[in-house]
């Protein structure tokens, strides 16, 4: 189908964007790989779009000493390169590689994926697992929301209609952090049926910190805190990984019924994928 009528404004500055959003009925057009699709279906009918593709600096990635700052127009593809060093860069590359396919990755953005909050999207689970900070800029200034509070349901977030998702801040992972990401999908171009990611640091043979995230295992991205707790203080061996996988399936996942996957199957798959992600991290494969 074709999209319904709307007004269009091309922003040149961040202030342009915030001013345009102030009416509460304007939508941000970033990569457009979900928004335009929804508009073609007419499941979304914005009164107006503010196009942020021409705003200088919005496509920048900045590396602070402890934080990666991602602008609102950084495309998925940017994370496929070695632009981000260290273990976080490895994890971002693995995750980005699983998003849709190359032409979509050339347009779609990380910030847009977070704002859209599709339950099967990869970036929201990464943001939740790493406790990313999300900066929202509205008429009254900026506020920062932690990823754990940002996602409130399928396609639902704490962002208000007059706010721009202005920046994503991901904590850099210390050198030596072991990372893993495993996704289950029907074909390479399909949405994730489920995915699990892990970032684990080990000192003196014991797990010191663990971040585990689940994609499409609930109505919103999941930080698998029970799985993390099962790992802390233990050697990252098969027993600990098996316990964490069981905890993820039993306590962290909250799957709903899906046409081709009942809840028992989904919990089983969460355990399998969590085990594989942790094993991948440990073995560096």
């Amino acid at each position, binding site marked *: 189908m074709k999209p319904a009528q709307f007004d*269009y404004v091309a922003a040149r500055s961040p202030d342009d964007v915030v001013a345009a959003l102030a009416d509460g009925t304007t939508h941000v057009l970033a990569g457009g790989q979900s928004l335009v699709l929804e508009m073609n279906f007419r499941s979304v009918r914005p009164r107006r779009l503010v196009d942020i593709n021409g705003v200088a600096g919005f496509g920048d990635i900045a590396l602070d000493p402890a934080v990666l700052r991602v602008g609102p127009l950084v495309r998925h593809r940017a994370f496929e390169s070695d632009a981000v060093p260290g273990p976080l860069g490895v994890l971002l590359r693995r995750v980005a590689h699983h998003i849709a396919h190359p032409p979509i990755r050339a347009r779609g953005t990380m910030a847009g994926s977070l704002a859209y909050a599709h339950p099967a999207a990869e970036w929201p689970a990464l943001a939740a697992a790493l406790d990313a900070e999300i900066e929202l800029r509205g008429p009254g200034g900026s506020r920062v929301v932690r990823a754990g509070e940002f996602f409130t349901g399928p396609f639902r977030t704490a962002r208000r209609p007059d706010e721009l998702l202005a920046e994503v801040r991901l904590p850099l992972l210390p050198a030596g952090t072991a990372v893993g990401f495993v996704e289950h999908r029907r074909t390479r171009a399909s949405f994730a049926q489920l995915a699990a990611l892990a970032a684990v640091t080990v000192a003196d043979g014991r797990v010191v910190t663990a971040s585990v995230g689940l994609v499409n295992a609930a109505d919103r991205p999941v930080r698998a805190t029970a799985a993390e707790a099962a790992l802390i203080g233990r050697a990252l061996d098969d027993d600990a990984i098996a316990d964490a996988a069981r905890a993820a399936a039993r306590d962290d996942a909250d799957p709903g019924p899906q046409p081709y996957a009942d809840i028992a199957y989904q919990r089983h798959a969460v355990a399998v994928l969590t085990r594989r992600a942790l094993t991948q991290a440990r073995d560096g494969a």
Partner: protein
Amino acid sequence: MRITLRINGIDCEIEVPPRRTLADALREECGLTGTHLGCEHGACGACTVLVDGDAVRSCLMFAVQCDGRAVRTVEGLAAPDGSDHPLQAAFSAEHALQCGFCTPGFLMLAAGALENDPGIAEDPERLRELLTSNLCRCTGYEAIRRAVVRAARGGGAPP
């Protein structure tokens, strides 16, 4: 809105409402019907064109977003004298099309990939991944894969 698209090297000034997708503007306002529309939600890739050198879904961009930008369509592949682009010759040589509906999209997907990243044709895993971007319901993809490899190796003409 009045916009200018630089299509295959020629400035095309058109008047379009914001809701006009790039794909529809190319077909309706510019008369370039080589760009096909299949699903209109980014799944099939029949509408793939190059915008500033990148392969994109022209059904998921609005024409007004491309004001002043360079767009390359399947009509821009052949040489000025009408001789086939190496990819076109290779698709013919390898029988990489049957009904042909998806072919413009596959040609532009491959053209963008080979121009930005020529090594992809010699990396079976990455080439396979690239070709999952678009749908072809006739060929089973293998002939398309062979055609891209053939074009990248400079062997476009039929044996």
